[in-house]
């Protein structure tokens, strides 16, 4: 994504992440910012899941303790920011597919799971 200004609080944070195949793969749980000269900052990474919730208030801190490591997605992987945040690659390639993979192992044992 090329440099442009965004209202991070309203436009990105807590928005749905969608991978290159159009599948939901988490939310923008937190953002890692870096300085960009005078009074400005650029987004370096999107943090998804687990301890990314640390910075999100009291309940977030509690939830972060139960969650694992957050997945870091570099901002360069973002294709487009609209109502949802679209990514350039698949969830698996960005390591955002782990939760689904784990659940799929259970679900697939039941006959008729992929009808």
């Amino acid at each position: 994504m090329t440099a442009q200004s965004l209202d991070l609080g309203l436009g990105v944070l807590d928005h749905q992440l969608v991978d290159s195949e159009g599948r939901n793969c988490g939310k923008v749980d937190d953002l890692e910012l870096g300085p960009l000269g005078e009074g400005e900052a650029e987004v370096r990474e999107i943090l998804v899941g687990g301890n990314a919730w640390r910075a999100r208030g009291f309940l977030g801190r509690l939830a972060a303790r139960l969650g694992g490591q957050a997945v870091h997605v570099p901002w360069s992987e973002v294709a487009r920011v609209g109502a949802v945040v679209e990514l350039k690659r698949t969830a698996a390639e960005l390591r955002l597919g782990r939760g689904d993979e784990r659940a799929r192992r259970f679900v697939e044992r039941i006959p008729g799971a992929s009808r």
Partner: protein
Amino acid sequence: MKQFLQIALGILAAIGGFVDIGDLVFNVEAGATFGFQLLWVVVVGVVGIIVYSEMCGRVAAISKRPVFDLVRERTGFSAGLATLIASEIVNLMTCAAEVGGVALALQLLSGLPYRVLIPLGVLALLLLSWYLPFEWLERVFGYIGLCLLVFAVAAFKLVDDWGKVAHGLVPQVPATNHAVFLYFAVGLLGAALTPYEVYFYSSGAVEDGWGPKDLRINKITAVIGYALGGFLSFALMIVAAMLFLPQGIHPQLIGTPALGVADVLGEVGLVLALVGILFAVGGAAIETSFSGAYNLAQFFGWQWGKKESHAGAPRFALSWIVIFLLAMLIVMTGYDPVKITEYSVIFSAVALPLTFLPILLIANDPAYMGSHRNGKVANVLGILYFVLILAIAVSAIPLMVITNGGQG
């Protein structure tokens, strides 16, 4: 013509799907205790659910996003998580209550022991939810749930003076017994304004790809479907008022109203009433477990949907399975399902402002809704109902404690 048929079928399913265990318990108890005096509260509740679900359907059609997605986006992680936790607790309790209702209805139909029928009932619901395509599920449970119309037939046969019934539509409070009256009023409103139906409805709308052209269907389905569903609530209350109030019967089991129908319409009436209850409550059990899964998936951003294969949305599928199993465990403790129902309705009333407020805010937000944001009517009603919901939320638990769950 085809569209008309589609709307009609949708409305039929909505009527059959309107009544759940909360409506059964509270309408019947209210009728048995106060006769027709609480009928007007049913009207207040039905108008409320029409306003609320029309708004949710409209938000879903315009923003293309389901409720919980927006709750988190609009209120942030912490407040959203608090709403999620409250909703999941209420959803689970409601699902448990519905599962208990399924087992009780099966018991009355088959004569087998209740404890055996709980896991059997849950297994049947799991298998149906797993293997049947979703339109089928919705229609099968909705249509067979229409057997509940025997209560309307029974009400017509029982009532000799419709003037008295009509008088119940005038807002009133009895001279004595205020606290119990208010407790039932809160229960009736809580049973009518169930958030799980709204989550379910809005998620379905997003999945079916609703857009601005569907707003008319949204309005028609909400208004007619719920209004006609409200007539079933009337019928339940009227039957209870005619049969149980004069004899001082305090119905403790959800089977009691069905036995009441047997008095008037014989064995066929009894079987129809029980089958209607079984499918209405069973359908609601499926809706609550799916609502719980929708909320989790939409909050955490998982792939979700009833059209997706189970392996394609594995965390969503696992969620509704786990909710069913947890609900089964709760009912297996042997705790009275009528009590579970009362608690679930009362706690649902307490949590209601948490889900109502974000919807009201978003439905008014031009950034999400553009020209389709709330008009004057929707806003006046929306705000009136929000105030009412706040009053209900604050008073629900104190009233339950003071009245000992409506026992007086």
